[in-house]
């Protein structure tokens, strides 16, 4: 299985993502933002970080970089595109997934483990996963998901919410919402479910001695789903 991780100026989770993908069997290539062509891939990942120093709006400059046209074409032809954290911000700026990510409600950079509840397993990312609740890590300043009420209705009608912030037993309540996200939304699909943007970092949970292993479950399941 082939994957590509795009590195933008200011990406800083690209290498972690590379390590994670390799660990679970992907043949991964790092791709520079200024390249025109995407290598042949089964999965493209937009990693976390601070692309272009978060200038203008997080992800806005990266969404216009050269490689993104190939990524958009790849997504529109059904290819799997996963955006984590800054990658999610880039995805919303391209319009591949609906909504925006605003500054966190209490204006703090948040760096901690959170629980997420998987809402929709009828997609290549979460299909066949044994667990409904995972512990992932978040580290962001702009993760406060927002969309218009019309968009929210569409998102809900099409089952596009991928994951919610919850507690460890899967309760989705305001007190477990770290950043003010609308309805505790932590991740969103496009309509076709081949594009997933989420704030939590699965690549930070792939080693028991460092953090946890729920990310391992995610990647193992993902590669099996793609095979």
């Amino acid at each position, binding site marked *: 299985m082939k994957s590509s991780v795009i590195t933008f100026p200011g990406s800083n989770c690209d290498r972690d993502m590379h390590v994670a993908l390799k660990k679970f069997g992907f043949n991964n290539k790092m791709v520079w933002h200024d390249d025109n062509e995407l290598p042949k891939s089964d999965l493209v990942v937009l990693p976390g970080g601070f692309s272009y120093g978060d200038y*203008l709006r997080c992800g806005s400059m990266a969404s216009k970089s050269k490689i993104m046209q190939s990524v958009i074409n790849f997504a529109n032809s059904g290819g799997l595109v996963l955006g984590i954290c800054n990658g999610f911000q880039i995805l919303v700026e391209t319009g591949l997934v609906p909504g925006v990510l*605003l500054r*966190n409600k209490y204006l703090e950079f948040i760096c901690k483990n959170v629980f997420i509840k998987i809402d929709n397993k009828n997609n290549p990312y979460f299909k066949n996963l044994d667990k409904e609740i995972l512990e992932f890590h978040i580290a962001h300043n702009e993760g406060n998901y*927002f969309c*218009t009420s019309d968009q929210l209705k569409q998102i809900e009608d099409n089952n596009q919410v991928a994951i919610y912030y919850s507690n460890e037993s899967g309760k989705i309540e305001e007190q477990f919402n770290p950043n003010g996200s609308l309805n505790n939304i932590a991740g969103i699909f496009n309509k076709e479910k081949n594009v997933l943007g989420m704030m939590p970092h699965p690549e930070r949970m792939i080693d028991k001695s460092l953090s946890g292993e729920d990310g391992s479950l995610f990647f193992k399941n993902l590669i099996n789903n793609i095979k």
Partner: protein
Amino acid sequence: MKVSAIITLKKDVLDPQGKVIQQALDGMGFKDVNEVRQGKYFEIDVKEDDPKKSRKIVEDMCNKLLANLVIEDYKIIEIQ
């Protein structure tokens, strides 16, 4: 021509920075503030001498990059 544009958050979008600024102003004694909304200001010098065309160019920029129309509105405030 020099075109000036401002970008502000739409009315129904929470502006936490504006809120904090308002609280700080309140603490400094500025008690007569209903609300503070923070925005962005751009001055763009375009290679075009016609004001109408200049406005069009910058509007296009606002629609495509400078503003995110899900949450922001833009306004061209000056062309000179």
